């Protein structure tokens, strides 16, 4: 059976479209990675951190999405909420903290202390206050929420450092250690700071 060139062209076109469309649909329907939901992990980790100062920020987040098709709004999602973000600083006592007695003076002791560092930046989910949420044509997803917070955390951390968090943390750490050593009978506590390896290399 001989087909005309137009029919053959139409058949080829239909086949190509079919294959491409099927490929696209199959890719969209690919099964998600299997997730073992009953796996619960527990982990104990020893640490030695002296948390000495904290800055708490209030972050007001507004984000959303609007979609229009031929000028008609089909999706309108938005959320406005506030959340506390805390930036904690202090010293890691595992990184070079050491005491040395002064042989010539019973009352004097030298303390080598690591520099203060940011020990954690955490968004406090319990402090969330949602002002409004609009979910027309779609819902707000968890990854969108957490992605927004993740973006702002580095900025918040930097702001805390710029406002002198590390200096305040170091000052309070010295006060705590001085008091502790005074309780043990040392009235003259002399501090020196350990410069971290990365700072030497940097």
């Amino acid at each position: 059976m001989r087909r005309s060139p137009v029919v053959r062209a139409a058949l080829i076109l239909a086949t190509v479209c079919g294959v491409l469309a099927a490929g696209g649909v199959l890719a969209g329907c690919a099964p998600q990675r299997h997730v073992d939901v009953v796996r619960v992990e527990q982990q104990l980790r020893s640490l030695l951190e002296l948390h000495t100062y904290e800055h708490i920020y209030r972050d007001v987040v507004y984000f959303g999405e609007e979609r229009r098709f031929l000028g008609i709004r089909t999706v309108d999602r938005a959320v406005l909420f506030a959340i506390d973000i805390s930036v904690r600083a202090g010293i890691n006592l595992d990184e070079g903290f050491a005491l040395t007695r002064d042989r010539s003076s019973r009352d004097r002791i030298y303390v080598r202390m690591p520099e203060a560092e940011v020990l954690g930046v955490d968004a406090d989910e319990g402090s969330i206050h949602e002002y409004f949420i609009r979910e027309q044509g779609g819902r707000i997803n968890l990854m969108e929420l957490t992605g927004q917070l993740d973006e702002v955390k580095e900025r918040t951390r930097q702001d805390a450092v710029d406002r002198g968090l590390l200096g305040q943390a170091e000052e309070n750490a010295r006060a705590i250690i001085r008091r502790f050593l005074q309780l043990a009978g040392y009235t003259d506590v002399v501090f020196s700071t350990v410069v971290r390896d990365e700072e030497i290399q940097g």
Partner: protein
Amino acid sequence: MKRRRLYFPIFSILVLACAILFFTDITGLDLIPGLPRLRFQQTTTFSTSSVTLSEVRALYELSTLEYVYRFVFPHDFLPEGQSIQEITRRLRGQPEGAEVEEILSADELLYLRTYNLATDVGLEHGGDFDFVVITLVMTAGFDVSEEPFGSDEAFVTSEYRDDQGVLHRRIEVPYPEAKILSTTVEDIVPDDYPYPDLPVGADSWRRITEYVRTQPLDDEVLTRILRTAEENGIVFLDQLLRSAGFDDVIFSEKQTTDR
């Protein structure tokens, strides 16, 4: 002849379908990236945030242990062998004004509360649930501004000479009792979260995390955490005081108290 007349409309429809499929954004499919497209849809996304410093405060926390644990909400809080139908049936059979806490067992109560929350936040779909994996980080250690370290007479120091006449320094330290310093929900980083996303707003997320965070920890686990935190603290204090020149570091007996 009749068939031939159909060729042109069929061909036209196919060309139109291809044009729509490949050269417009109507279907939302991007089968061949990079092709020029006519835009019929318009998507606008927006995100703004403003951060203001609201509080600064000094801390006095010596953290000696971190305990990281994960929960799958709501599945970890739906005890096996329970069903909402059975719980509802039991509640219906009770006289009016009876307290739910008195009617249901601990497992049934946990199931009911978890089920209600999961339903409220939109995770329940005809008996099946969307889930979220939540990581909690608990830190344990000491608040050094509190007793015993907060007291001016916390340590008792003394000196003595041994049989060879060598002078020794001795310090008595009150037993440091560890406590839970904080329990926080680890922030989810979307790129590192390998599980399916789920639809929850900000307030629903607050309710889920608060629910998980405030679930009581098993007594045995809690005791192990506090004991290990205390042991770590004692090792640290012992080394610290020895390097401060004390030959004998004596920790007082632990007071037995109800937690």
